């Protein structure tokens, strides 16, 4: 199984996904969000702006890279290992229909690679391909994922967590109120998009998650 150097440092337990509404030339709310991260709470931040041209994604990634993030934080982009390398990001998050980590580790051995998974089969493939973490969801009902059907639920989350030795993040409708249930099923951390959108409450939400996930 391929290994990468970066996986030896512990991954943050909070995984924040960008809005998908960033504009060209790095205009949007992502940089404001990054500036507001509490300095003692490490986060994974995934730049997931699939509508952007590659050039604009690179511009945004370079801008994000300039922000001083909490120690231990990791900055990832969606799918594009070329952009991650060009911008000096820490890694890449791979949707289920993307290239698998082993193909990318061949030319990007120092990047962290995580995979979205929706089934035990996908979990197995991602694990064997050298993924550093897995992302599973939607666990609970969430407006942004309703078009993909019913939530997958805590039971399935628990089954997947027990089937893998990799860190698994729960995504989809996870709140400080239900995060403990995810922990009980064996998740490593939680991921979210909508819950972090409101900048006036972001720091408080992060604090709540942090105290639940780092008891």
């Amino acid at each position, binding site marked *: 199984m391929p290994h990468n150097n970066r996986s030896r440092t512990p991954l943050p337990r909070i995984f924040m996904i960008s809005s998908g509404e960033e504009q060209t030339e790095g205009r949007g709310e992502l940089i404001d969000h990054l500036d507001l991260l509490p300095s003692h709470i490490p986060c994974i931040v995934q730049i997931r702006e699939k509508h952007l041209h*590659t050039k604009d994604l690179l511009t945004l990634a370079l801008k994000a890279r300039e922000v001083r993030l909490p120690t231990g934080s990791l900055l990832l982009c969606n799918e594009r290992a*070329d952009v991650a390398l060009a911008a000096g990001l820490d890694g890449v998050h791979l949707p289920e229909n993307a*290239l698998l980590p082993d193909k*990318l580790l061949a*030319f990007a051995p120092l990047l962290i690679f995580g995979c979205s998974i929706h089934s035990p089969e996908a979990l197995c493939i991602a694990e064997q391909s050298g993924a550093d973490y897995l992302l599973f969801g939607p666990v609970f009902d969430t407006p942004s994922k309703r078009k993909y059907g019913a939530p997958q639920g805590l039971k399935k989350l628990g089954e997947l967590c027990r089937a893998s030795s990799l860190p698994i993040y729960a995504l989809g409708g996870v709140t400080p109120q239900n995060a403990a249930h995810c922990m009980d099923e064996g998740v490593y951390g939680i991921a979210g998009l909508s819950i972090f959108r409101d900048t006036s409450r972001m720091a408080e939400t992060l604090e709540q998650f942090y105290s639940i996930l780092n008891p």
Partner: protein
Amino acid sequence: MIPSSPFLCVITDEAYCPVTLAEEALKGGAAMIQLRHKTASGSQLFTWAVAIRNLCCEYHALFIINDRVDIALASEADGVHLGQDDLPAAAARKLLGNSRIIGVSASSLEEAVQAEKDGADYIGFGHVYPTVSKLKEHAPLGPKNLQKTVKSISLPVVAIGGITIENAPILISMGASGVAVISAVSRAENPSKAASDIISVLQKSVQ
């Protein structure tokens, strides 16, 4: 590196299987295949890329991928073709090294000059003629502008956009090293014959 002039580059058409089209084009003598698909998933692109790369090896042609430097590296393609909205050539060069080919689209002399400075290996110049393959923001550049660009830079220039068997030879006379087509091959009744017919008129135009 770049095929000897005059050559035909065939760009895949999203309406058809890119592997089948590439094979037809290669049978007809295309010296360069560009895989271009803006909506396919990464794993789908990679699968196509490996298949087309193998075909290109068999036919001693070059295999180029549009935009996706990551897929090019993973599939060991010969290079990439970058539009003005893709990764800048200089950034791509750092990832690809000097042995891989970088083509850059230019729709003006200024863009062509910049691409040369950024380390491109060839310029895709166009669109030279009116085209339905893509919605265009500017008027066709025409053979005259192509010639001006060829004379102003030292890189090989590949003409693109609205090229047919009838209007291709003049572009070679104006100094293009090759022509790139989509529909002239993909939409032909017999794509492989269409490719070989274009190549023979290109060769006649330099004799």
